[in-house]
């Protein structure tokens, strides 16, 4: 809740100008004192104006024989209103398999529509609903990099900071967890030419993160070198479990665990994580994932950083 400050009548015109000139924004994922960074593998629980360019990863595939895969991807997210966001992303992949052809090409275009269900500053809680659409036939399906059919994944996202822990557990207060769970539905259930069923898949993931910026500004300033005060050590995981229409396919969960660290700057963040497959079907050995992520609301506060609709709201001196 916000309220306008009281002011003498003589200052009213100046204040009116000020009000009309301002748009109060919290944009990327601030929830009270908590900042949820853009995670590399799963999504953070907020709509935002941001861009990941690029995200680069390398790992050895879980096929037999194991191949070597490079992915370079880009993602652009834009708020339509303060609570409604839209995203578009794509990935370019190269897969080298020993003794086999090199598969190269773009994956399907992916769009995401998200609605911010909740941002509770006092509890450091954020919730989001989204629909991810992987548009079939827009990528290189001939090379096996994209699918000829569309995938729809309604997804629920949540983030919870632990800042509400008692002072006796002060050094645990910078901890936060985020999670998401989605149900992936293909628009085709069966490919006749390959005699293959296309399964419906449960897609779920989580992150555990420790915010050094939160430690410094909310709990205790240990007067560490400034570099360390920008770091968020993190462990992410993402899993895929086929749950329906999976006749003839191996019924096995695949996924990765991704320990790493994110450096938070004023206008960008840089993330670096390892890719550890959870089983042989998910990959071989340890891969690597890196990302440069741009905060467009900070870089371009008057243009790209504004919601398309209703972006110029009134600021307020928030009651403490």
């Amino acid at each position, binding site marked *: 809740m916000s309220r306008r400050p009281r002011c003498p009548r003589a200052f009213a015109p100046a204040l009116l100008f000020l009000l009309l000139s301002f748009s109060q924004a919290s944009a990327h994922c601030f929830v009270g004192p908590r900042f949820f960074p853009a995670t590399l593998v799963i999504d953070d629980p907020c709509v935002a104006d941001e861009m990941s360019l690029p995200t680069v990863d390398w790992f050895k595939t879980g096929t037999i024989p194991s191949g070597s895969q490079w992915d370079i991807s*880009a993602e652009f997210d834009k708020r339509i209103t303060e609570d409604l966001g839209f995203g578009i992303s794509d990935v370019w992949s190269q897969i080298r398999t020993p003794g086999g052809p090199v598969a190269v090409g773009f994956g399907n275009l992916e769009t995401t529509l998200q609605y911010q269900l909740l941002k509770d500053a006092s509890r450091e809680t954020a919730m989001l609903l989204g629909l991810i659409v992987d548009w079939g036939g827009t990528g290189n399906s001939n090379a096996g990099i994209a699918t000829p059919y569309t995938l729809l994944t309604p997804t629920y996202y949540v983030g919870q900071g632990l800042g509400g822990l008692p002072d006796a557990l002060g050094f645990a207060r910078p901890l936060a967890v985020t999670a998401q769970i989605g149900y992936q539905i293909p628009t085709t259930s069966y490919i006749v030419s390959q005699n293959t069923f296309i399964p419906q898949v449960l897609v779920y993931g989580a992150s555990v993160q420790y915010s050094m910026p939160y430690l410094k500004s909310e709990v205790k300033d240990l007067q560490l070198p400034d570099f360390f005060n920008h770091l968020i050590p993190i462990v992410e995981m993402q899993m895929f479990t086929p749950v329906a229409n999976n006749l003839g396919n191996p019924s096995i969960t695949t996924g990765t665990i991704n320990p790493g660290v994110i450096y938070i700057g*004023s206008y960008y963040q840089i993330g670096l994580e390892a890719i550890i497959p959870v089983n042989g079907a998910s990959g071989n050995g340890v891969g690597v994932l890196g990302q440069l992520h741009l905060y467009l609301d900070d870089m371009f506060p008057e243009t790209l950083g504004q919601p398309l609709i209703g972006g110029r709201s009134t600021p307020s001196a928030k009651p403490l």
Partner: protein
Amino acid sequence: MRTHIAILSLLLMALGTGTAQAHAFLDHASPLVGSTVQTAPPEVSLSFTQNLEPAFSTVQVTDSSGARVDQGKAQISGSTMRIELKALKPGLYRVRWHALSVDTHTTEGSFTFTVGGS
């Protein structure tokens, strides 16, 4: 392929204009966040990573019972916000702040400090 490249080009063009500002993070405070001071400080000073909009940035200091112990109006200059304190007794105090950076991004937070080692 052309569709993919066209979308990427549009995104890069969109990045070509604008002036950069950012959220105001608390850079450091006096007394230090979470610290214990032996002498009661006459004021709390907060330094942020961005310049603040004075009309919409506030700070408040309370004792362990929730009573206000700050006095006067917060003084904001550039990226620094100060507020004077009444004579503090030994005890735990909480500082709550709300900042609006000059590009209208809001941030907020709170921390404690202790006077006299109690």
